[in-house]
């Protein structure tokens, strides 16, 4: 289960992906816990769901959630065991992905923060504003240093998409604070 994918071996691999040989991938135990939690949720969360008339639906609405839940619990257990035995997943590669460096979780946290801000403000300010901020903010976090230009591009995209959806698709995106202006 730990073998790397069949075909990638022959591929022009970027330099060896940060191997840390031998060690236990401790965060993976967290993943196992998460999988177990989802499994438990499937079982407990459907505990009170009532079966229909037994004749019409012998299996009932609780069967699949329980099956899925038990499956997830069992697999979480297996994952925990193999993790202790030194199993680690193969992180996904890609054109822009450089696995030789330590992951930069600070950047990810900043992006998630910008995203959360967008969620909090979109109803009040409207997509035309928050979309532009989202674009400029993400570009900034990822290394762009031209605030003004980023904001202008973001604004063109967000206002443009507002009208494209309104006129082209007939989907009226709520204008938020700009109601009456857009």
């Amino acid at each position, binding site marked *: 289960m730990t073998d790397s994918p069949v075909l990638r071996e022959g591929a022009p691999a970027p330099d060896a992906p940060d191997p840390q040989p031998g060690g236990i991938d401790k965060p993976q135990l967290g993943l196992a816990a998460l999988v177990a939690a989802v499994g438990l949720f499937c079982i407990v969360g459907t505990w009170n769901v009532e079966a229909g008339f037994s004749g019409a639906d012998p299996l009932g609405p609780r069967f699949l959630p329980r099956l899925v839940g038990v499956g997830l619990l069992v697999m979480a257990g297996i994952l925990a065991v193999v993790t202790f035995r030194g199993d680690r997943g193969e992180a996904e590669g890609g054109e822009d992905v450089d696995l030789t460096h330590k992951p930069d979780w600070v950047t990810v946290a900043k992006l998630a923060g910008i995203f959360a801000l967008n*969620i*909090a403000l979109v109803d009040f300010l409207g997509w035309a504003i928050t979309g532009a901020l*989202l674009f400029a903010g993400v570009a900034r976090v990822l290394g762009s240093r031209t605030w003004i230009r*980023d904001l202008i591009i973001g604004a063109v995209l967000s206002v443009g998409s507002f009208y494209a959806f309104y006129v082209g698709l007939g989907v009226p995106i709520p204008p938020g604070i700009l109601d009456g202006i857009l």
Partner: protein
Amino acid sequence: MDALNGLMDGFATALTPMNLLYACIGVILGTAVGVLPGIGPAMTVALLLPITYNVEPASAFIMFAGIYYGGMYGGSTTSILLNTPGESSSVITALEGNKMAKAGRAAQALATAAIGSFVAGSIGTALLVAFAPSIANLAVKLGAPSYFAIMLLALVAVTAVLGASKLRGFIALFLGLAIGLVGIDGLTGQNRLTLGMPLLSDGIDIVVIAVAIFAIGEALWVAAHLRRRPAEVIPVGRPWMGKEDWKRSWMPWLRGTAYGFPFGALPAGGAELPTFLSYVTERKLAKKPEEFGHGAIEGVAGPEAANNASAAGTLVPMLSLGLPTNATAAVMLAAMTGYGIQPGPALFEEHGDLVWALIASLFIGNALLLVLNLPLAPLWAKLLRTPRPYLYAGILFFASLGAYAVNLQWFDLALLLFFGLLGLLMRRFGLPTLPLIIGVILGPRLEIQLRQALQLGEGKWSTLFSEPVAVIVYVVIVLLFAAPLSSRLIRRTPKEA
């Protein structure tokens, strides 16, 4: 409806100016996103799902088909000009393709990939016309037990055959099934796993899931690992091939097609195995095997054809059985359900006009791609230099827009972030994303078939084995689990490559 007549009607629909325009937009968009890192055809179709509110189904699917084939083309450009293939299906192309490009033969590598894709795509689509309707005809007669078994086969095959770790595949699949459970149970009308939130009663929109897993998860993952210095792009002029290149390419194209189509058409799908088999075959048959590893054109021509033929093959189970076996097909099926069209064996009968227009547009899109891509290759190469902050800011922007447009409520954006973080986790721990998406899409349909089968069988489990087709399919599933034996054989070979 007779297949040829259907196809002619399909061409009549697809060749109207408006639909031709959609086909053009589709192939250009598809190629662009195939070229661009971090964004693929599945995500693009997912982002474009809002157009289904206002565009005719035929036009939408014509565009989606263009994106699907275009994405394949674009992917090969990236793997030839950059030494870092983005998708597993173009890993093999990169082997020889990038070596060719480094040796100054990028133009020939792109040409054999483009023309090979055209040849394979055309033959593959013709085979689709030949096989899909008759398979659908057979499948319509199947009862719930058989249909349940076939869906189970698709789930198991996608999960167990593709990817390195079965455990991780099944974890992803079961997480997908769990997500698919959220919402009102269709048969009893009761809420399941909604935490009492009315917003979750309709279930979690597949657009939100697909965009979150493919786009947000990918962008966050890339952000954590962004290259300090973008990979080097090899400059290229207009692709062309000399006489010698043609001579060395045409047989690999045909052989690659022969590998690709059947593998694509099987429920397991996947382009990894056929591209690999094609590569090995070409190396064995090559007149100058010593060139392999230094840029042999056969090693680009064969796998690229296999890749495209498999893309065509994937549409056989999708259109004839309603079974998606790759991410793009899965999202296209989601679009169908969005139109209130039930995917399944009855599709050819009930929505024949739509299906045939889609197939006809595959032929058209394939030709358009050849015409467009030979002259546009230098432009596509420039696209690879897009500043990364803008590229990923753009992806997050359009992902948010796509998810927001579904219901125009912030709640979907919150779900998007939640599942985007799940997508990030999956990439960190090597969980494959495809089984999760397929689980979300097929899970609810699987449950209904199972419950209906047991309804008709008065609750006896033996009813699941009451149809011969079902029994055969279960045997195949058992064999799939026994397959690691043979896959271990394959695993040994690439070391010599």
